[in-house]
């Protein structure tokens, strides 16, 4: 919409100035209120940024000291008490494998569902899918974990813990996020491109694969990376599905795995270690807390990197439509 510009009918600048003074200067209380609200609204933003800055600073300052080559490349196998020689390699491996598996499950389902909603969706089914995808984004993560446990208990019996159960739990959380963001991206593809493709006699499925997906690939990548960033830090569902271990496990279909968030939680809940001979190079009393901060730092770096890469991919590689 455009606002019509009305030319000043006469040179009554003095009159307009008087009017303006009458309008703006009439009521000091109103202006004060306006100022107050402006300050309040600015401060709301500052209030929200304070925890973010404080949190990132805390993680950086507490975690940086613990990061070393050993910390990143060793597991916690046979590490007891205050022994500071353990590391988080097993947790990194577990997090990467489980998240990758969850991504492999979620992306095809989520992307196809988004294609359905944008390209085919009409009627009751599409409305139901849209609505329940939104509802699914609100499923508590622990409930997703319990669902995966229930599902696998039915087939494998009770008490089973393995990586793939965690991946299923994470995909329940990830699929709706993928659908949402992919749907937004596919909607951005201009209809003219589709119509041009149809006009050339290209069948619909090929149009979708070669035109729609190709045009939006940068946006889709962003959406998927952000979805991965969302689930990579999930703790509760992994705590109930994958369990904990101190050893390296590469096989998501066999045995427990450790993941970074669960590692941070476990180390935190271990609390202080007892050092009989006092603090020394082989016994540090608060090593568990230090480990937790170290794992937190690695985790937050992963999450922030995924976020950043996601945004940059979209900025650099998305086609300029106009």
């Amino acid at each position, binding site marked *: 919409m455009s606002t019509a510009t009305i030319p000043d009918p006469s040179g009554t600048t003095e009159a307009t100035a008087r009017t303006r003074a009458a309008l703006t200067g009439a009521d000091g209380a109103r*202006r004060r209120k306006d100022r107050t609200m402006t300050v309040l609204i*600015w401060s*709301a933003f500052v209030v929200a940024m304070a925890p973010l800055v404080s949190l990132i600073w805390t*993680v950086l300052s507490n975690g940086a000291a613990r990061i070393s080559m050993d910390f990143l490349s060793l597991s916690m196998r046979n590490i007891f008490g205050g022994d500071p020689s353990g590391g988080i390699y097993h947790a990194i491996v577990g997090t990467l494998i489980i998240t990758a598996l969850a991504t492999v499950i979620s992306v095809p389902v989520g992307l196809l569902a988004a294609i*359905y909603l944008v390209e085919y969706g009409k009627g009751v089914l599409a409305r139901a899918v849209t609505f329940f995808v939104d509802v*699914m984004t*609100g499923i508590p993560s622990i409930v997703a974990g*319990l669902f995966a446990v229930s599902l696998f208990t039915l087939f494998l019996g009770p008490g089973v813990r393995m990586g793939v159960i965690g991946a299923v739990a994470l995909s329940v959380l990830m699929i709706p996020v993928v659908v949402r963001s992919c749907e937004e991206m596919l909607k951005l593809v201009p209809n003219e491109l589709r119509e041009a493709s149809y006009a050339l006699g290209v069948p619909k499925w090929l149009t979708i694969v070669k035109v729609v997906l190709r045009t939006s690939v940068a946006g889709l990548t962003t959406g998927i990376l952000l979805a991965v960033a969302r689930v990579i830090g999930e703790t*509760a569902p992994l705590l109930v599905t994958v369990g904990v271990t101190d050893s390296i496990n590469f096989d998501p279909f066999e045995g427990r795995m450790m993941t970074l968030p669960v590692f941070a939680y476990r180390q*935190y809940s271990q609390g202080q270690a007892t050092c009989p001979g006092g603090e020394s190079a082989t016994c540090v009393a608060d090593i568990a807390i230090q480990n937790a901060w170290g794992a937190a730092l690695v985790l937050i770096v992963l999450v922030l990197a995924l976020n950043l890469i996601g945004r940059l991919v979209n900025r650099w590689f998305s086609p300029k439509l106009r």
Partner: protein
Amino acid sequence: MTTTVSPPPERAPGRPRRRGRTTDRGFNRAFRWIAVGAGVLILAVLAAVAVFLLQQAWPALTAGSDELAASVPRYPDDTSLLEYVGPLVFGTLLAAALALALATPVAMGIALFISHYAPPRLSQVLGYLVDLLAAVPSVIYGLWGIFVLGPAALPVWEWLNSWFGWFPLFAGPVSPTSRVLATVAVVLAVMILPIITAVAREVFLQTPKLHEEAALALGATRWEMVRTAVLPFGRSGVISAAMLGLGRALGETMAVLMILSPGFLYSFKILDSSQQQTIAAYIALDFPEASGLAVNTLIATGLVLFVITLAVNMGARAIVARRKEFSGAN
């Protein structure tokens, strides 16, 4: 878009071109069914969550109270499952309500800031910054809450107690550990800020420009414009945003688990430790060591949480969906 009038198709005389009226054949049809299948699969997953939880919770739902007391740790004698879950539901609702009360005003402020107050060039970046709050893993919020926020908030809790101790929420004694529901509520509020902000921001941005300009033209200050044009337009959106935030706060596990010192009371004392516990934290605390009927009981409590959050989320989404159809924006 330009449209060109195509010349009428020339047909070979006597040989009308026969084509199927539909192009829905072969690969086209297969691809369509795959896409539809993915959509249906999502509905099936949501249904499966409900069905499997119910199926695994069933043994606990049908077991007698003495049977439960025998096999579930921390299960008091002579209580039905409902009485057992009651305090947990209470704690969950109390924590979520407090978080919501703290987060909603701030989130509305941020949303207004991004949509109407911040320089337009910056608003997208500021939006990303707020979204980053949602990206931080909850276990890190837990660490931060216990080591940074807890000690920092303790003087505030003591001050609240000494001045407003007559109010049930702030009744003493104040726990010196700061592992109390008030600290949890603040952390939860920070965690749900981004979702409330995101939805409210979208709604505020949809305010018809003409309404805003009309308000300004009538001599309204910027705040009066916001109050008379933007806020009434966005009211239902803000309500549903708050409900979505409530849904998040209800299901949040790790922050509560790590910060709160749990108790099983119907207690409003949010400054004292060992008073309340939430469902999600309770499950995460006991599940790793549970076996047999205890697992079923925990899944039953999870089912309760699922039903509550599902109801809240469906309500919120229904409001958003209705608003989309009837809002003045289109």
